[in-house]
């Protein structure tokens, strides 16, 4: 795989925890790859299977959902529902012959700025290793 591959990754982050953790990572001036772009949602329970598939359809190399710690969801159970939907999309990708690791669910609290950066690093490294989405073969260097 060529080193020049820069994956496009979209992260759906809940307002209360993951998005706040991303802000905190900024306040702490922690660096992480610029490949990750965040869409804020009120709760990961709002993330629909269709939203995740749509990202892949559009050419996302990786997609992840980040919500509150399990048991700490501001809306009781949104993050648990999101995890199930991510599992569904993993299955769908596998069925289509696409690496299911391209989609992931993470949990972190709003005080976990370093963890946010770590997740962004982890996901970017993972996708770099997997290479471009098979839907983007023309992007491959």
């Amino acid at each position, binding site marked *: 795989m060529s080193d020049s591959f820069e994956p*496009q990754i*979209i992260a759906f982050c809940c*307002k*209360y*925890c993951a*998005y*706040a953790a*991303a*802000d*905190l*990572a*900024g*306040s*702490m*001036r*922690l*660096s*992480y790859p*610029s490949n990750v*772009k*965040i*869409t*804020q*949602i*009120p*709760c990961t*329970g*709002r*993330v*629909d*299977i*269709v*939203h995740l598939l*749509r*990202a892949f359809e*559009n*050419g*996302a190399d990786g997609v992840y959902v980040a919500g*509150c*710690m399990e*048991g*700490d969801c*501001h*809306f*009781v*159970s*949104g993050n648990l*529902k999101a995890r199930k*939907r991510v599992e569904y999309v993993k299955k769908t990708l596998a069925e289509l012959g696409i690496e299911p690791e391209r989609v992931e669910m993470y949990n972190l*609290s*709003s*005080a*976990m*700025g*370093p*963890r946010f*950066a770590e997740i962004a690093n982890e996901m970017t490294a993972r996708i770099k290793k997997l290479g471009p989405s098979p839907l983007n073969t023309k992007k491959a260097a």
Partner: protein
Amino acid sequence: MANASENKTIGSVMVVGAGVAGIQASLDMANAGYYVHLLDSSPSIGGLMAQLDKTFPTNDCAMCVISPFLVEVGRHLNINIISNSELETLEGEAGAFRATLRNNPRYIDAEKCTACGQCRDVCPVTAVNEFDCKLDLRKATYIKYPQAVPLAYKIDRSICIGCGMCEKVCLAQAIFYDDKPRQTTVEVGAVVLAMGNDVFNPSAFDTYNYANHPNVVTSLEFERILSASGPYKGHLMRPYDRQIPEKIAWMQCVGSRDINRADNSYCSSVCCMYSIKQTLIAKEHAETPLDTAVFYMDMRTYGKEFDKYYMRAQDGGVRFIRARVHTIEPAADGDLKIRYVRESGELKEETFNMVVLAVGLTPSKDAEALAKRIGIDLNTHRYAKTNDLSPVSTSRKGVYVCGTFQGPKDIPQSVMEASAAAAQATQNLSQARWTLTRTKELPPEKDFSGQEPRIGVFVCNCGINIGGVADVPAVREYARSLPNVIHVEDNLFTCSQDTQENIKKVIVEKGINRVVVASCSPRTHEPLFQETIRETGLNKYLFEMANIRDQNTWVHMHNPERATAKAKDLVRMAVAKAAYVEPLQQVILEVKPAVLVVGGGVAGMEAALGVARQGYQAYLVERSNQLGGVAHHLRVTWQGEAVAPYLKQLIADVQSHERVQVFLETEVKHITGTIGNFITTIASENGNGKTSILEHGAAILATGGKEYKPTEYLYGKHPNVLTHFDLDQAITEESDTLKNAKMAVFIQCVGSRTPEHPYCSRVCCTHSLKSALTLKKMNPEMKIFILYRDIRSYGFREDLYKEAREKGVQFVRYDPENPPNLISDEQNNLSLTVKDHILQRPLEIKPDIVILAAAILANENKKFFEIFKVPTNSDGFLVEAHAKLRPVDFGSEGLFLAGLAHYPKSLDESIAQARAAVSRTMNIVSKKGILVGGVVATVNSDRCAACLTCVRTCPYHIPRIGEEGYAVIEPAECHGCGICVSECPGKAISLQHFTDEQINAKTDALFSAA
């Protein structure tokens, strides 16, 4: 502001101390019609809670739960935060005080400061970071923590060298070296003191080696070590060599229950629980198995869900060792050696990698001095003195107290008292309600229906925070190329006052109908920009932000090219969503100015009377034929105040108040409606079956509890075996049995901490101690034993324990595996055997009376709770909305709880919680109307298949299938999470402002880069 005069009541209040208690009191009063001056000596609000990593017993992240409250206070139109300031004098009297404040210089204008942090970056002076307990460093120009409110820097002039670097780089021109202390005055009708207390400094304990050994840390230091945003970024390390500890010991009662070194004889109430929490969290953090040992005297897990938490720790392998360690000695490699004596007398020695001192709470010198200045009596422990029957009132009329300035306590108790203090402080100000509050005059909203999106994009440089990294002009020009964009500009500081004015002008001139700001985080700034656009007549939802600072230039500062590219991506995504955002109408629902209170015990009566005294109608529904509840069985409060006269007066006040309507022998049958507008059907149970309909804006459930009727220890079989209620009655009646008794035995935890009731009933230890002292007073010759598992005399109740020991009451600890054995012979003589834990052999005693500290149980109300759809825990107690910060609210809006139905508690705590519930209802019923709508789920009935998916998946049980045959979601009840939206198989539900179209627009835009 109105002049204070003899007969004028001032509609504003002052809260001194902006920790979690002060914040709650301020919000409660500001939301109920009073202008609040919130004073704090620190540069930012948040108090001690902001420093904590997690909170027990839910392990919620402390910052996550407090930060929304900080933001709300910071933005509240009717809360004036006066940071960095102190109260000097307080003249006048209740209803009209004149407070003189000393405003200490900040040297940075908080109004102008944008918290960009440039000043910090260039500051050459380094100092220890007090927020991180000196485990980390900060600069002389600093902000306490990233989420601080007000979000503004401060210069620590005590170390500043005056180099002028910060002034040079501050593009907002906020640096103000010549800032001087100022004196200001405010006029207020009441004052709430919430200054908190200090954390004990264990340097004095030379035998603990805290001052000399870096691996002996305080529990607060350990909080910072555990914190993800702390000095070690959440990695569990010990300070000495940053090695990962494998063995940690906690020493309980450091600076508490100690008059030898600490001079604090009381129990600090919170340390047992926070130590358990720290063991659990530390274990979670550790990658290898972590050995944790807690050295303690009594494990005081007396609160709601606390004992289960304790059991969880025991099951998780935390070692609890009952021993008072007196010496911690340095060992090799930074380790620490501990020697202790087991109860059996066996001497043990163990080495740990690190030791945490569970330091107690101690009165704050500053708070003490303030109390003296303004004439507030302190108790013998140097905390604000209060009575049990007026738990939040100080010795000065019109001045109230809450939180740990009144005594050591945990967060929910502080929050409850804060609301209670808010209720008491405003009770006599109700004639001035809404007189000093501010409202914003807004132009009517413009109608853009049918218009194409006309988007204006404002890109912020944030001084050089954004512009110094990303190419802002390039981002601006890129925005110009995006669809529907008709105006672009970049600003030095988009949030500054002059830019706001300019934005308003441009919106009007160019007919902009959607606004995008690319700057910092919507978390902190979205409300500000929304307010700005609303002032031009744009609905506040016609707004979208691109976070190109916190989530871009701050994290990609070393890669300007990528930061620019990412900023373009983020702007493109925001513009794409903006094209789809729609104005959302929030409608005002009228509020019924009345409160329903269910339960006629002390909590219910205090609640009803409190509501009435605030000027609103209260309906008090009680199912029995009398008011008073279990308080009829109580003799005195723990501080010795007589209950009967208080209760008599309370009942008389309730019955005579014109705004309290009492319904005895009445049950609630049905309730409909939502916050602000409930309609409840009640029915008389006294035979006539009369039903009435009550309309009310809120409801307080105070359905009470009862004493467990023991089946153990010959209760009911032998006349001299009594419960606490029986004993109180016998004392009141001066019964001969008591007078003639030569020996009395109290048995603790009868029905509590058992498999059937696995919780602590909280009040029984104190009740037994108090009763033992009373018996000793009646008959000093009487021999008294208290058989216990842990003595849980938390807070100042420890005084009773101390006094009981001094007076010769004997304490014998028993294990639940070896409970005392009580028998009665043919002559009806009682005989009791128990294994003494010190002597390690059975002790046989022949008591004349035995008092069983019977558990407190919740009243059974299954049907009733189902009518209100309120949850109970596995022990039958009602479950509040949040264990820490919403201890009197239910998850369902408009419903509140108080008293024993929530958890066993003492009379003073019940009264405080009832008054807290009053304050919470004032946030609703004092308003003319409440706004509903906004980010809520709406149903497209054409698409709805009435499949029940939403009904079954909503975590709050809000959706229902209406009479029309499709799902109905009340906007007043919807919490706006969007779970049902994403579950709906017919795509019939949308979450406003987060529709599929809007979310997908962002995704599509991200991947459609030109």
